[in-house]
């Protein structure tokens, strides 16, 4: 079972390395969006510190969503998606591989750069650790749920905007527990409760979402 998932991951990572522009652009989007907020809100550190978790998480949500159409659209356009659907393995496993590959290329970089942006918001060190951990744990769920949106809107005109309409409401629990974890850590309540719930959301998403996305792909490939 793992063989097909690792095969898909290695293929997608090789492809992503060949076209680094997409990874970097989503990352810069994240950086720019986060940096805009202090300009809008004003420089007072304590206000920014209060807003940091929410701002960083919403920006992470939007950055992940930017790269969702790429999950299936390229493969659909050049015909490789059909070949993946005809691989002698359940399509859900193939999609799981693609979701993990997508996370490695979108969620992981966001987590790595989040602490640096946290400094802009004058977050304490625990806060920086918390935001990194939260985004690291939470973004796989974003990729998983996002895969459902990407599969449902495959080949549709206006797909980018449509995906956000479908997927953002489903992202809300991840946003709440993700931002909540940082907030709880910073205010001293301890974010373990939130992080464990976030991890639960991620495991549930990685477990079920690929199969729903596979069903959506089958509908789209009809």
């Amino acid at each position: 079972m793992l063989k097909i998932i690792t095969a898909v991951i290695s293929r997608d990572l090789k492809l992503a390395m060949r076209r680094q522009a997409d990874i970097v652009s989503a990352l810069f989007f994240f950086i720019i969006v986060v940096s805009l907020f202090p300009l809008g809100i004003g420089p007072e550190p304590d206000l920014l510190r209060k807003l940091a978790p929410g701002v960083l998480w919403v920006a992470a949500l939007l950055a992940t969503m930017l790269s969702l159409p790429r999950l299936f659209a390229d493969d659909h356009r050049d015909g490789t998606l059909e070949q993946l659907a005809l691989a002698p393995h359940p399509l859900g496993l193939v999609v799981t591989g693609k979701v993990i590959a997508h996370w490695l290329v979108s969620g992981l970089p966001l987590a790595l750069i989040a602490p640096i942006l946290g400094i802009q918001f004058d977050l304490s060190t625990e806060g920086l650790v918390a935001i990194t951990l939260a985004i690291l744990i939470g973004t796989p769920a974003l990729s998983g749920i996002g895969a459902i949106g990407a599969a449902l809107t495959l080949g549709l005109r206006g797909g980018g905007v449509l995906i956000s309409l479908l997927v953002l409401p489903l992202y809300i629990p991840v946003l709440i527990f993700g931002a909540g974890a940082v907030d709880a850590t910073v205010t001293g309540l301890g974010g373990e409760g939130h992080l464990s719930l976030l991890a639960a959301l991620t495991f549930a998403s990685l477990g079920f979402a690929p199969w729903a996305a596979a069903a959506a792909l089958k509908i789209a490939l009809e």
Partner: protein
Amino acid sequence: MLEADNLECVRGDRRLFAGLGFRLGAGELLYLQGKNGSGKTSLLRMLIGLLPPEAGEIRWKGATIKSDEFRADLCYLGHLNAIKEELTPLENLLAAAHLADEVLSEDEAMDALEQVGLAGREDLACKYLSQGQKRRVALARLVKEKRPLWILDEPFVALDVAAVNWLSGIISGHLQRGGLAVMTTHQLVDIPAGTVRELRLS
């Protein structure tokens, strides 16, 4: 043994065909004839299991085609080349084989690429190849293809005469080895080996 009986296809609100059936044994090639829009491609998509038929059933070796085993025996070549532009022809072949659980060594892949006349271009990213060359990368998959059931959607389109002869040789080799093939094509190409049967879609 590929069997289809009482197949019905409705596209949008037009019924393209109904009550369609056939049996295809080892070493046999089925030509699908019919003008554009008569449902040839839809029938192919049904045979590979991507398009559920409105009615009727398809069996491979007596079992349903909605299984991993069927897909392990199936090789499908559609209109699209199914190659990644960023990868080189060699990487494309190896990745396709790897994803389909097929054993393909690098030498075999190099040999296949040589046979389709892409010698020396194995390590050039496909986006730098011409349309004809990309098509040949897609066809190169058939050279070492060991899976018994081939379903080819207009494989001869946009090929020069030499390539057409080469491909018909590959297909007849496949049939001689006891393989099966279902093919749609506009120009009738004579396949030397295997028994050829025709199915016309009105």
